[in-house]
């Protein structure tokens, strides 16, 4: 049952170059920059627009592609929301918390080891039913989830209408419709991330606060 040949395990031999690069970036981070106050992870199925959303939130360009599975490494960026320094982490695509490929394993390990303050689950609004199971799993795992409904423009064109407030009430997590390619909804997403990170989501919508507090209680207990 024990998978001793896991290629991504931390004991994997790494090149001196990679170790040097890591050491250098850690040194740089420590000496030049203040540590981030809050951490936000962007997760979701492959090809739903995570990297583009990351670009929009941080202003850092990582390769974006109309092809599933382009992000194979973890990218980090920073942004200020309301004077608070956030670290935003872009992850490889995952279909579920139960990984079936190395990249999914990378994404899950990140969630487990770094315990982000907010997890932004990006979904393709056209395929909501296929993506919600991961939302449920993230909530079960005790994360503070924000659901970003991406590609709202394409959904609209396909004739799909989504009642985001009803979705919010049913799931009990904040839902933000966005169009990452044009930047629509990004400002609202930033506000919601900030509110959820500081436990004031109920100020945006009364139904939200309770559920988020419950979830944190589950996570703590």
């Amino acid at each position, binding site marked *: 049952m024990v998978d001793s040949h896991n290629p991504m395990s931390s004991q994997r031999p790494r090149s001196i170059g990679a170790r040097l690069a890591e050491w250098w970036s850690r040194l740089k981070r420590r000496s030049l920059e203040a540590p981030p106050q809050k951490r936000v992870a962007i997760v979701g199925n492959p090809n739903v627009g995570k990297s583009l959303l990351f670009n929009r939130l941080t202003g850092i360009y990582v390769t974006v592609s109309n092809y599933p599975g382009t992000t194979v490494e973890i990218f980090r960026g920073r942004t200020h929301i309301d004077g608070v320094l956030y670290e935003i982490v872009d992850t490889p695509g995952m279909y579920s918390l139960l990984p079936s490929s190395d990249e999914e394993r990378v994404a899950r390990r990140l969630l487990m080891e770094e315990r982000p303050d907010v997890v932004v689950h990006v979904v393709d609004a056209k395929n909501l039913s296929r993506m919600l199971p991961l939302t449920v799993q993230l909530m079960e795992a*005790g994360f503070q989830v924000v659901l970003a409904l991406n590609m709202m423009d394409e959904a609209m064109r396909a*004739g799909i209408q989504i009642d985001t407030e009803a979705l919010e009430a049913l799931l009990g997590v904040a839902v933000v419709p966005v169009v990452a390619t044009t930047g629509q909804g990004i400002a609202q997403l930033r506000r919601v991330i900030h509110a959820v990170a500081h436990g004031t989501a109920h100020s945006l919508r009364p139904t939200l606060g309770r559920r988020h507090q419950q979830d944190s209680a589950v996570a703590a207990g």
Partner: protein
Amino acid sequence: MEDAISKIAQWLRADYGLSRRAVALLLLQEDPEMTALVAEREDPKVVAAIQQLVRELRGRGERSPLYRITMTRQRFAEQVTGQVTAKVTVKTRTLSERLSDLLIHPFWGTLFLVALLYFGFYQFVGVFAAGTAVEFLEDTVFGKYLLPPLVRFFEWLIPWAWLRELFVGEYGIFTLGIRYAFALLFPIVTAFFLMFSLVEDSGYFPRLALLVDRLFKGIGLSGRAVIPMVLGFGCDTMATMVTRILETRRERLIATLLLALAVPCSAQLGVMMATVSKVRGGIAVWALFVFAVFLLVGYLTARVLPGDPPRFYMEVVPLRLPRLENVLVKTWTRLQWYLWEVTPLFIVASVLIWLGRLTHLFDWLIAALSYPVQWVGLPKAMATVILFGFFRRDYGAAGLLDLVDKGAISGIDLVVTAIILTLFVPCIANFLMMVREHGWRAALVMTGFIFPFAFSCGFVAKHLLLWLHQWGWVGS
């Protein structure tokens, strides 16, 4: 089931970064990583109890816990979706959907692929970038304006010829390293990345994956592997890293081997087009031969390596009109990455060649290499080209170009060398990436296989070409 979840959740003591309920669910779904982690962190008694419970649940009911948990979530998701979404219009088949069907059609899809490869890659990258643009940069910009004053400057600066060689000698940092990096590779790689980004953003690749899935199954890969393979035509080093998107280690190993062996990178492609195309029928023989090796080795590796054939599941993304801005930014970031990675390697290679020549180490190596070279039936001078190919694949290819320009090699030998160089040990950067992704052992085994295999193929190719020449199908 719910009972088992809460029982396990209560037993757990350690912190996993996930809620206990989530950990319990993963254990019931028999997630290997989580099971190992729990076995490591919990009391052995608890571990045994959990194992007992999981086994019990698996035995009970006709469906596995994994299936039941997945279905419960899926039902919930569908229920929620049904409650919050409304479909306004009856969907008609759009133009893009009809186009999509054509692209995965066995006949029309293949036709489109061939057209794309011919116009997009052969004509644009191979002929325009590798021909016209390289010629202009090499002959005019570097040959006429940049290098002559530089050479004069170093002649004035450094009186010792042996040291001057390092900078402006035949294989010097400026005359070889910088010139190849900027005049030869830069235009080719730019054109390739531009084309690649354009096709990538259109959403064509998942359809290509569907199209070639059948063929790839035969060589132990799934359609998913199409991306690293296509990317390999740009840069094998980058492609080797991208094999991470493949699901099993087995599939990754096969893809890595095939990339190193039979997928020429854009720099090589450019030079091959420029040299081998001078021989009548040369390109066809070279391409068919390398493709045959690709299929054969893939087929055999899939037989030899233990493990199951990959499952294929991929989202087919909608076809989109690429946005010029995105394509340009993406091409630019890839180019930046490439220049940062590649230029230093060229300089290092120049220094190594200089050192190797100065210490006569190269003479030894070339002498050693000349045996297999002569066994294949090639002129001795090819040993030099192949040795330099070891430092960077494209270096060797470019050395070949020089020999052709001097008229020092026959047409058949040119094609044979091109085949050996294409199959030969990947460039140093690619090798290091193989080590990083799969460890020293796997990387050394693969290179150890490629070495003699490339020469054996050269031997076969030489005789094949001589035979074809007799029939008048290939020029000399």
